[in-house]
C-alpha cells in the first residue's frame, strides 16, 4: 500500500518522464543506441516521437518503461525517472503502476487466453482485490469501446482489436504515462484514425501523458502538443508541431507530412499540422489573396481530365499501355473454417490486372486482401471461381524475414538465375553479405529476389508481382525506395499488385485502386479517383483540397498554382461550408 501511495503522490507532482543525459548501448553493439538524451515530459502532454527507422525511438520507449536496461541488458549512463520513480533502480514490474507500454506488434504483447484475463493481469499481479479488478476492467473496456470483446479469446481478434486490448492492458492500472511504439503500423486508415483520436481523448479526459512513436506523421501530428525528433540516437528537434514542420522542411524532407509538402511547394505559410489547419489557412489565403479565386473562379469550372497533375496522372496517361493479361480472377469465393462459424472471406471477387499495371489493393483489416493474394499464389483453394495467371506470380508476403534462412545472400540465390534476380532488385553487390546484416529495405528486396528467382525468362519478370503490406514499420525514405522498385518492375513488364493500408504510399505508386470490403470488390477505379473521393481512403492532400483527382502534394501544388487550370471544375459543398464563401456561385471570383 505504501508503495502505491508514494507512486500516486509522485505521479501528481513530478514530471511524467524525466530523462537526463542518457547514453545506452545494447549488449555487444558497436555503437550506442541512445547518445546523451535529455528529455522532460510534463503531466498531461501528448508528445509525438518522430524519426527515421533505427534512429533510437523504440530504445527510448524501452528505457522509459524500464525494459532497458533491466530486461535487455547493456550499458547505460545518466538518469531516468517516471512520475518520480527512478526507472534505473526499479524494474519494469515496479514501474507497471506508473507507465503503460504498447509495442508495435500486438501479437506478441498478449499473454492470456481471453481478453478479460489479459486486461485483468496487471491488476492481479499488483494484488488488487477481485472487486476492484472487475471494476477497473469494466471501466477501461468502456473507455476503449471494447466491452463486447471481454469474453472473446485473444486469438480470435483482428489486429485492430488486439491493439486496443493491448492498450487496455496498459491503461488498466491508470498509469500516468503511456508509451506507444508505432501502434497504427498494422491498422487500416479507419482503425488508425480511431486509435489516434482515442489517445487524444484519454489524454484530455484522463490527463494521461502520452509518448507516441510513429512514422505516419500525417495521422497524428494534429493531435500532438509537441514533437520530439530523433536522429542517430540523439534528440535532433524538440518543439511545437508547426515548428517541427519548418525544421523538417530544412533538415529532413522525409519527415514532412503531405500537407506540409503541399504548402512548401506553393510557398504558403504557416505549414499546416493537419487537414483542418490546412483548410483554414487556405480559406484565409483565399480571403486575402488570389489563391482561392484561382481555385474557384467560376461556378461549374472543372479540371481538365489528366490535366498534367503531377507524376501519378501522367503515369496513367503515359506511353506504356497495358499490353496483355497478367491476372484474371473471376467470381472467386473463399471460405475459412473458423471453428463452429465458417465464413466467406472472399465473396465473388472479380479482378483483372494487365502487364505493366500498378494496382493497389486496399480495404479494412479483415477485408480479405491477404486471402485474395494467397488464393492467387495457390496457398488457399477457392471454394468457387477461377484464377488465371498466364505468366505466373511471385508473391512476397508480409514478413520478408520469413524468406531468409541462409547465412549468405549468395546461398539463398545460387547460380545464374539467382544472380539475375539479384540484379533486378539491385542487390548484385551484396552476394557475400549476411542477410541479417542488410538494412530493412535491402532485406525486403532480397526476399523479393528470392520469390522472383527462376520465374523470369531471361530478364523478363513473371506476369504478376504481388506484395502484401510491404510498408509496415517503414519510414518515408524506404517507402520511396520501394516505389521506385515497383515502377522498375512495372516498366519491365510485370503487373504489380500491392495490398496496403497506406493511402499515401498507394497514391505514390498506384495507377488503379481496388477497394475490398467484407470480401467484395467495392471499387475498382483509377487511383486518383478513389483516393480523392472519400474520408478514410483518401490522402491528406485530397482531404485538404477536396478536388477531384488531386491526391499528391505535387498535383495539389499544380492545382493551387493554377497552372493546370483550364476549363471548369466542380466545387464541393463541404469546402464551401469551410470557407464560408459562396464560391459555388463564383461571386468572389
Amino acid at each position, binding site marked *: 500500500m505504501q508503495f502505491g501511495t508514494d507512486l500516486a503522490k509522485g505521479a501528481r507532482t513530478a514530471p511524467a518522464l524525466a530523462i537526463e543525459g542518457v547514453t545506452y548501448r545494447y549488449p555487444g553493439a558497436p555503437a550506442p543506441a541512445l547518445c546523451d538524451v535529455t528529455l522532460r515530459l510534463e503531466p498531461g502532454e501528448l508528445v509525438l516521437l518522430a524519426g527515421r527507422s533505427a534512429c533510437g525511438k523504440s530504445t527510448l520507449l524501452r528505457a522509459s518503461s524500464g525494459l532497458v536496461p533491466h530486461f535487455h541488458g547493456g550499458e547505460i549512463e545518466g538518469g531516468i525517472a517516471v512520475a518520480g520513480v527512478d526507472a534505473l533502480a526499479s524494474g519494469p514490474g515496479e514501474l507497471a503502476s506508473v507507465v503503460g507500454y504498447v509495442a508495435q506488434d500486438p501479437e*506478441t504483447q498478449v499473454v492470456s*487466453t481471453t481478453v478479460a484475463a489479459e486486461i485483468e*493481469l496487471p491488476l492481479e*499481479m499488483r*494484488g488488487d*482485490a477481485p472487486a476492484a479488478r472487475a471494476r477497473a476492467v469494466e471501466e477501461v473496456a468502456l473507455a476503449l469501446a471494447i466491452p463486447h470483446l471481454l469474453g472473446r479469446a485473444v486469438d480470435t481478434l483482428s489486429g485492430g482489436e488486439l491493439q486496443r486490448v493491448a492498450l487496455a492492458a496498459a491503461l488498466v492500472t491508470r498509469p500516468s504515462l503511456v508509451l506507444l511504439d508505432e501502434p497504427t503500423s498494422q491498422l487500416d486508415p479507419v482503425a488508425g484514425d480511431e486509435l489516434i483520436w482515442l489517445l487524444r481523448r484519454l489524454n484530455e479526459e484522463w490527463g494521461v501523458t502520452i509518448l507516441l512513436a510513429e512514422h505516419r506523421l500525417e495521422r497524428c501530428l494534429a493531435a500532438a502538443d509537441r514533437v520530439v525528433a530523433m536522429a542517430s540516437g540523439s534528440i535532433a528537434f524538440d518543439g511545437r508541431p508547426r515548428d517541427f514542420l519548418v525544421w523538417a522542411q530544412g533538415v529532413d524532407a522525409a519527415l514532412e507530412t503531405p500537407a506540409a509538402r503541399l504548402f512548401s511547394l506553393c510557398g504558403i505559410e504557416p505549414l499546416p499540422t493537419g487537414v483542418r489547419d490546412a483548410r483554414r489557412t487556405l480559406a484565409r489565403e483565399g480571403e486575402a489573396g488570389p489563391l482561392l479565386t484561382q481555385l474557384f473562379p467560376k461556378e461549374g469550372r472543372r479540371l481538365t481530365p489528366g490535366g498534367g497533375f503531377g507524376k501519378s496522372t501522367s503515369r496513367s496517361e503515359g506511353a506504356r499501355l497495358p499490353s496483355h493479361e497478367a491476372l484474371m480472377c473471376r467470381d472467386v469465393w473463399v471460405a475459412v473454417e473458423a471453428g463452429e462459424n465458417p465464413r466467406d472471406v472472399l465473396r465473388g471477387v472479380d479482378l483483372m490486372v494487365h502487364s505493366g499495371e500498378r494496382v493497389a489493393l486496399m480495404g479494412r483489416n479483415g477485408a480479405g486482401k491477404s486471402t485474395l493474394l494467397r488464393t492467387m499464389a495457390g496457398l488457399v483453394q477457392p471454394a468457387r471461381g477461377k484464377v488465371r495467371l498466364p505468366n505466373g506470380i511471385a508473391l512476397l508476403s508480409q514478413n520478408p524475414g520469413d*524468406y531468409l*534462412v541462409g547465412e549468405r545472400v549468395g546461398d539463398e540465390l545460387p547460380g545464374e538465375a539467382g544472380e539475375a534476380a539479384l540484379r533486378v532488385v539491385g542487390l548484385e553487390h551484396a552476394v557475400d553479405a549476411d542477410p541479417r546484416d542488410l538494412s530493412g529495405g535491402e532485406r525486403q528486396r532480397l526476399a523479393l529476389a528470392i520469390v522472383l528467382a527462376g520465374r523470369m525468362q531471361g530478364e523478363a519478370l513473371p506476369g504478376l508481382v504481388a506484395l502484401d503490406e510491404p510498408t509496415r514499420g517503414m519510414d518515408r525514405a524506404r517507402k520511396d525506395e520501394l516505389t521506385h522498385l515497383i515502377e522498375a518492375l512495372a516498366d519491365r513488364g510485370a503487373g504489380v499488385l500491392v495490398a496496403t493500408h497506406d493511402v499515401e504510399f498507394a497514391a505514390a505508386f498506384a495507377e488503379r485502386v481496388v477497394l475490398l470490403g467484407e470480401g467484395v470488390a467495392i471499387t475498382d477505379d483509377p487511383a486518383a479517383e478513389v483516393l480523392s473521393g472519400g474520408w478514410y481512403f483518401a490522402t491528406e492532400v485530397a482531404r485538404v483540397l477536396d478536388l477531384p483527382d488531386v491526391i499528391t502534394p505535387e498535383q495539389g501544388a499544380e492545382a493551387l498554382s493554377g497552372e493546370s487550370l483550364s476549363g471548369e471544375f466542380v466545387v464541393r459543398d463541404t469546402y464551401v461550408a469551410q470557407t464560408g464563401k459562396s464560391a459555388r456561385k463564383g461571386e468572389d471570383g
Partner: protein
Amino acid sequence: MRSPFAYRPRSGPLQSASPAAAVAYLGSLATVGFLYSNPIVLAATGAALVLAGLLAGARDAVRAALWMGLTLALLIVAVNVLVVDRGATVLVRLGQLPLLSDVITAEALAAGAVIGLRAAVVLLAFAVYSACVDPDRVLRALRPLARRSALTATLVSRLVPVAAADAARLRDAARLRGPAAAPVGRAALARRLLAGSLDRAVDVAATLELRGYSLNPPRPTPVATLFPPYTSKKRCDRRGERPRARRSRYDRRFYVVGALVLIAGVAGKLLGADAFAEYPAVQLGVGPATLALATLLALSGLTPLSPRPRRTASTSLPAGWRS
C-alpha cells in the same frame, strides 16, 4: 486456423466451474479409464465424456478427439495383432515372419481394441479439459504454489499457438520461393523456427515483465494486523492478502459427481465390475455391478447440462409488468 482443442470462452457450467472442480470431474472419468479394462465400462466412460463435451459446447474438440482416438486405436489394434501370438481363437495364419507373430487371434484383436479404447477415453478427457477449462485460471491457481513453473507454463501456453502460426507462415514462404532459389529443407526450416521462437519468447517475457509478473505474488498476512478485529471475519481481499479464488455455483455439482464416479469406480473394482479377460479366450463380465457402474458413468456425462432459465412470474404478471 485455431486448434479444435483450444479453449473457447463460453458461459456453460463446465467453463464457469473453478479449474479444481472441472479437473475433479474430468479427472475422475479419466481415472476410471485407466483403472478399468472392461470394454462396457470403458465405452460408458467414453460416452460420458462425449456427452459432457457436447453439452459444454466443445463439439469440435470431441470430434477431433474421436477421430484421433479412433486412428490411435486402430494403430494399437494393428500392432497388437501382429506382435502378440496369445489367444485360442486363431483367425489367420501368417506363417513364419521375423519379429512378428505367426498367427492373428481374436483375443489379441480384442486386447488391442481395449487398449485403444482406453487411449481414446483418455484423449477425450484431455480434449474436453483443453477446450473447456480456462488455462489462465489454471495458471493463476498454480502461481502461488509454483511461481517459476507457472511462468514457464504461461510462456509455453502462449508460445505454442504463436510458434504454430510462425511455422505455417515459414512453410508458406518456403513454398513461395522461386524455383531457382535455394530450396529450404526441414532442418533449415526448424532452425529458423527455433530462432524465431526465441525472439517471440523474449517478446512475451518482456510483456510479462511489463504486466508485473516479476513482482512477488501477494502473500497471506495475519488479518488482525491489517484490519480491526470486527472486520476479520469479512472477506478482505486488499493488497497483502491472498485473494479468495473465484467460485462458481456449479462447483459443488462437479465435485460431487467427480467424487461419486471415483468412489463408484473403486467400489466397482472391488466388487468385480471390471470382469474381463483377454486370454486365453475373451471373457466379458456383464454382471449387475458392471451394468450399474456403466449406467452411472454414462449418466455422469449429463453433469455439464445447463439449467433451463426459470420462466415463472412472467405468465402470471400483467402484460405491462413483463420485462
